[in-house]
């Protein structure tokens, strides 16, 4: 799931201060699960902006709205009658959602209300950790189910490096050395000797990546 953190209200104020018609747009996807950018947060932010605008004596009309997902054309399209009322949309979706809006509605300014950080997992309530960078060539089958691309600070294919100590990564004592985890898991599974082979350099495919699923495209044409 995509993890994001809210931008500070200071930053958001700077983005919108010279505008009169502002919408705050939540997203019902990942950012809702994390209580960062869902309907509730959109309402809260809109209320905060209204309060601030009033105190500052600014004339500002603030609307809030939440889409089921900001990364799907059908949900974005549902806004087409309303965008004309806005100068600015502060999107609480991840960077993907922000860009979907910006592409679909070129005449409105779309600003991010959150900083998108990573694709990660909930470790415990309030603690999220990066797990995948979407490299386009998943090889965790070779590394005990752990990803060295996303989780090793040096993206090593043949770790661990000389900085692995007591299970921690050299970059931070809070970060587990993923190669220690890989080693332990593979030994436990009785496939430790696979680590003795040399894993080749990674194919860092061309970015941005694009994916086509022909069967879905055909169906769409027919309907």
């Amino acid at each position, binding site marked *: 799931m995509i993890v994001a953190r809210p931008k500070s209200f200071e930053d958001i104020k700077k983005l919108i201060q010279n505008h009169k018609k502002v919408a705050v747009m939540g997203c019902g996807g990942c950012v809702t699960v994390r209580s960062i950018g869902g309907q509730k947060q959109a309402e809260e932010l809109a209320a905060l902006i209204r309060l601030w605008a009033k105190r500052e004596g600014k004339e500002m009309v603030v609307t809030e709205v939440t889409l089921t997902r900001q990364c799907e054309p059908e949900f974005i399209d549902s806004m087409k009658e309303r965008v004309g009322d806005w100068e600015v949309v502060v999107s609480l979706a991840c960077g993907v959602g922000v860009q979907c809006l910006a592409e679909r509605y070129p005449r409105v300014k779309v600003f991010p209300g959150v900083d998108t950080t990573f694709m990660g997992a909930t470790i415990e309530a309030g603690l999220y950790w990066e797990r995948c960078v979407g490299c386009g060539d998943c090889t965790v089958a070779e590394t005990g189910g752990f990803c060295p691309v996303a989780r090793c600070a040096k993206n090593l294919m043949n770790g661990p490096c000389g900085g*692995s100590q007591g299970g921690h990564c050299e970059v931070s004592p809070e970060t587990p050395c993923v190669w220690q985890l890989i080693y332990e898991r593979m030994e436990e599974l009785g496939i430790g000797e696979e680590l003795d082979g040399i894993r080749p350099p990674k194919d860092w495919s061309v970015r941005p990546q694009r994916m086509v699923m022909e069967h879905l495209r055909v169906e769409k044409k027919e309907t």
Partner: protein
Amino acid sequence: MTGKNPQAVRAGLKPAPTIPVLTSGSHLERLLREGRFVVTAELGPPRGAERAVVEKKANLLNGYVDAVNITDCQTSVVRMSSIASARILLEMGLEPVVQMTCRDRNRIALQSDLLGAWALGMKNLLCLTGDHPKFGDHPGAKPVFDLDSIHLLHMLKTMREEKKMLSGTPLEGEPRFFLGAAENPFADPFAFRSRRLAKKITAGAEFIQTQIVYNVDKFARWMEEVREKGLHKRAFILAGVAPLKSAGMAKYMKKNVPGMDVPDTIISRLEQKKGGSTAGRLEGIEVCIEIIEKLRQIEGLAGIHIMAIEWEEVVAQLVERAGLLPRPQGRG
């Protein structure tokens, strides 16, 4: 294996040559193949463009060591390039070991710079993964790590033996470096360290310079594993040593340098030494000489590598007092 990369097919599976053939024309390689106990040292280039600094440091080492490692922006701090500094040493008649990390260059830049290094006369190459930029003076730099040290070794070995680039493109003249790697016997998981060393040797490493040894017992245990696997016969192992300046420095290294094992006995020895910084330094040198003497007893060790970081002037003294003079002549 992904099957996508052309290099995946060839990845590393041929062992490095074990026959004593001189591939590079390097002085260091010749001494090692002749079975001499070698001494190498480290030179950190300046944080500026002053050639004279390199010359001054090189003069301190001249005649006391068989080859000089030139660090590649060690601890991710910007310094004069290792290849440029190595060229200055060559012009002075010293034997450089170029250090190259995967931190700042992708596979294109690595190959390009190393082709140039060979053309400039460098013959020894130490292939490293490198520290994370977070530790240096530009912590926001983008870490490259396109390849790791094992890939770098294998790439250079393939260039030398198959006269091909990583992509398979034929080379117009191949670099024939004497290839080295680093290994940290004190990192975790301990049981995997000698296995990872084996991977480096399979990938192409012919000499190994280890992390600084303070815990000789642990190093000796690691060397036992190295001998059990016969790795000392497939590559020359040089143990890293460095004199400590004070108990404070020892404690700092133990705490802050990942994979640095400084036993408490050494720390308390330095602590007990009264008489200010000079006394501390003298004791540090004393400890280092004792370590060198113990290391020389270990079967299968081919030499020592002195890492007197920003303390190059101590090297002459160490080498002399450890009974390692005179050094064999006849470089080039």
